[in-house]
């Protein structure tokens, strides 16, 4: 678990990598420090999630990547 990422600071468009290896792009940030709204770009465990928007829990965010 990455405890150094303050998800309140993440802008829309930021790409995030989740603990399970999935990658997603932030589409909205309620800035509550707990949740992000993101669209899956890849999902090794469940390919059906790709393209789906879902709420991402802060503790699931492993790392961030620059937009684009």
């Amino acid at each position, binding site marked *: 678990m990455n405890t150094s990422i303050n998800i309140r600071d993440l802008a829309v468009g930021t790409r995030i990598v989740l603990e399970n290896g999935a990658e997603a792009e932030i589409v909205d940030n309620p800035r509550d420090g*707990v949740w992000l709204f993101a669209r899956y770009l890849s999902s090794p465990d469940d390919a059906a999630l790709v393209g789906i928007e879902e709420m991402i829990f802060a503790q699931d965010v492993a790392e961030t990547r620059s937009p684009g």
Partner: protein
Amino acid sequence: MAMNATQGYRPGLVDLNTGQISREIFVNDDIYAQEQERVFARSWLFVGHESQIPNPGDFFVSRMGEESVILCRDRAGAVHVFLNSCRHRGMKVCRYDDGNTAVFTCPYHGWSYGTDGQLVGVPYFREAYHSELDKSRWGLVEVAQLCVYKGTVWANWDPAAPPFHEYLGGFARFLDLILDGWDGREGQAELLGGVQKWLIPCNWKFPAENFSGDSYHNISHRSVDLVGVGPSGKSRRDYGELNVARKLHVAIPDRGHQTITYLLPKDHPQQPAYQNAPEIAEYFRHCEEERRKRPGENARLIGAPGEIFPNLALLPRQPRTLAVWHPKSAHQTEVWRFFFVDRDAPQAVKNFLRDYYIRYSGPAGMTEQDDMENWNYAHAASRGVIARRYPYTYEMGLGHAVEDYEFEGFRMPGRVVDLTRAQASEEPMRNLYGRWAQFMEAESWDELMTWRRNAPREAVAAK
């Protein structure tokens, strides 16, 4: 003193025949606890005003009885009132006074709710719950009934309660005196600034009783009158109508609402007001002129302090304000005061009234400070074991109220006492506590809707 929940409120504690009411109903912790269930969980309660949540995602954290609730507008524009408590472990999901949000997130374990109350975020939903939690069953608790009346938002936890309009009965016209525009247009009120909130060390019924129409306590505002905080620099208000109007107590007996009101004669001349501020005076002169052109009888009414059962006080004019007496304990009340103006009034008028309003009401308002001194020390002096033995008297004017009151063609609803000569009565307080006692005794709303039981008989009598 332990109380039986279903016996003893009348005549033991609230004796309307003699006008005696026990101090226990103000200071007894057991009675207070029962009030939360029997009064506040069943009554229509004022929650806020639509002008506080104009946009999707806007929210205002309010209270219903002791409980925190969220008034919000969802993304589709619908208004909701939710219990501010996470369904998982009860933590408040919103700890701000107001704002705009996409979700309400519990800081404890992270459960998250949409502005429509649906549970949308559950940490480790797939992993820990194995996707087996039925999210549709665990949304925020929503009130059983909600009503938006001319911008004011009212809510009720009891699905068996009558609709809000029926709950108001004939009292809506007095609430309209706040919510309609100064020129008589419907629903022009806009909240002015924020909500003033403060704590007072007394039972919530002390202010509720006072605003029911206690004109007997004017002596305690004598110093304010002498200072002249009024908008014309004299007294407390511009009430030239006192010279020409009938001053009345109006009580709606089967609802528990009551007020002071001034009933003007037909074709009455306008009274001077705002005499130290020509621009403001001209604005109100024009508004009053327009108001008289509109159909209906409300142009003959000048609003004054009143109370909608159980804990919403209205003051339609000078200052134009609603106050909620939120119970915190038997011995503490949280006051919330909302000030109103017409939304399209000139900014100079709003500025003038803001200064006058806070000079009069709120924790720093001179008149409110007088009142608080009385309520707080009356409560403290009624808590002792000796003091509790001695009831208060509410016998003033007992038996002198009339029904079907009429003055120059204006028929007033409810039970009426003409104060023009009498100066004061305690009919409004008897009405308040009579209804309070009914709530404390009744097992359900079936017993409280006395007007529905009486309706067939009245219909028969009319035939």
